[in-house]
């Protein structure tokens, strides 16, 4: 059997007596867009934070690429190629859009203290390449014109796009996105998903929490439904949409 890119095994996380995530098993395989839905408070964001190493799971293990990452620090998980974009953009607002992108580059030699002082020739070439990549991604999300503007000057929708673009800049194997289409107009939401789908050809898999189900279901190849900390159903979008558990999760009655 092919090893999944991300495998969550029996993961639980509780706060006091409340199980935010309760014995969750999940797999995300390489390629395409994977969805995670559920009503508010069902544990989606907690699960994401546990995957990212921001929370330590109380039980269970998270495997990425076959390797246990439950005990790694967030920056080490990032180095493995598992990257996250925040629900509310957390940009570096006083820095330019391009600098925001360059911070996200993985393995930039110039990030090291010694290299910044002495071996400056070494990373200048690398930086040139990274800038080309950054501009390409910025053009792709239609922010190319803004490369040298401070990120603080962008509009709300553009900030959202930059947050996603910054995630793409890391060339992650898996990019977790928490509600990329929330708080922006429906057309732009759809554009973002279309762009992600186009981008997923480049070796990046997306795992997305989204409340805008109509958009997510159009683009996702597999959807997990969480309710009260558990996975209640999963499957291809059209199957999930017909599943009783899915209705129960959203309309209550359970």
């Amino acid at each position, binding site marked *: 059997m092919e090893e999944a890119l991300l495998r969550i095994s029996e993961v639980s996380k509780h706060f006091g007596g409340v199980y935010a995530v309760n014995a969750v098993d999940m797999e995300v395989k390489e390629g395409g867009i994977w969805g995670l839905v559920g009503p508010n408070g069902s544990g989606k964001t907690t699960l994401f934070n546990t995957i*990212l190493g*921001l929370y330590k799971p109380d039980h269970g293990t998270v495997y990425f690429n076959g390797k246990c990452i439950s005990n790694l*620090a*967030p*920056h080490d998980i*990032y*180095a493995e190629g598992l*990257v*996250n974009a*925040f629900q509310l953009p*957390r*940009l*570096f*607002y*006083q*820095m*330019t859009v*391009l*600098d*925001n992108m*360059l*911070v*996200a580059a*993985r393995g*930039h*030699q*110039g*990030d*090291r*203290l010694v*290299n*910044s*002082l002495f071996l*400056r020739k070494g*990373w*200048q*070439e690398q*930086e*040139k390449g*990274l*800038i*080309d990549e950054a*501009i*390409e991604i910025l*053009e792709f999300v239609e922010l*190319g014109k803004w*490369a*040298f503007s401070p990120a603080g000057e962008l509009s709300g929708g553009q900030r959202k796009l930059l947050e996603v673009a*910054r995630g793409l800049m*890391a060339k992650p194997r898996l990019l977790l996105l928490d509600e990329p289409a929330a708080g922006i107009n429906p057309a732009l939401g759809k554009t973002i998903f279309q762009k992600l789908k186009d981008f997923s050809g480049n070796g990046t898999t997306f795992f997305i929490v989204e409340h805008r189900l109509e958009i997510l279901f159009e683009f996702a190849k597999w959807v997990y439904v969480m309710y009260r900390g558990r996975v209640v159903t999963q499957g291809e979008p059209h199957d999930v949409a017909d599943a009783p558990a899915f209705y129960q999760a959203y309309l209550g009655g359970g």
Partner: protein
Amino acid sequence: MLLYGLDFLVFVGIFGIVALSLNLEFGFAGIANFGKVAFFLIGAYTYALLSKIGIPFPLCLIAGALTSALFGLLISLPALRLRTDYLAIAILAFGEILRLIVKSESWIAGGDWGTSVAPAISIAGASHHVGVLVNIGLVYFCLLICFVIAQLLANSPYGRVVRAIREDEIAAEALGKDRAKYKAQILMIGSAMVGVAGGLYVQYLHYVLPDMFVPMITFTVWIMVLLGGPGNNWGALLGAGLVELFKYGTNLAKPILPLDPINLQYILFGVLIILVLFYRPQGLLKESPIKTKALELVRYGKGVVNNKAGK
């Protein structure tokens, strides 16, 4: 009068180094180091004690830098756990504790009475003017080195990461940056610089006293950085120049002032901080953008990139 001017230049140089180091910590990395004077003290006492046992002055300066950097590393441990304002108080207290230790323990360096320090370079038979000129050379040589280091750091991907940590620690951590490591490094470099400044200071004054290291020194340096413009190395130097000019100016005007200039300075410094923060929070000079060769190339040779994207 000429001597007064030369003396002024020495002080601008020494405090220029201190301001550069605080700018590195606060302006670029966002670490509110309210204990700057502690590291100044460490450098000064290291220099004084080592030079007493006959160690040549460059080694004394380097040892001061290293000792100070070591304490910078120690301070970085709570710095990662405490919020900015709590950290500020903690480091402030650290500085006071150090000062009180050297004040009460007379075996260290004469306690309250201090001890004399030999000048770094003494030329037999030379006039006092020449001595000050030699000091200007030495101080500005050190200042130049610190400035080059600060500029290299500011204009590199390293500096970009450090600024990102200042802007949003959580986001920087989520983008794979080990903020603990970066903050520790910055505190070590900043402390090393101010350690050198401490050595230069006491060898220029020829003595070291605990009361040279009161918290007011820290605040004076903060005014330099806030006034000049945090996140701009030229701003730090400008701030150091202006604040020293102000100090020397009020001292000169002593006969015609109604108050003791020292007290007047304290009052006016307080007013100055309030005015700067209210009306020009970014300081006189704006934060300098990150400049690397590759970035400059894209920015000013824009056609190249556009052609490529247009293909």
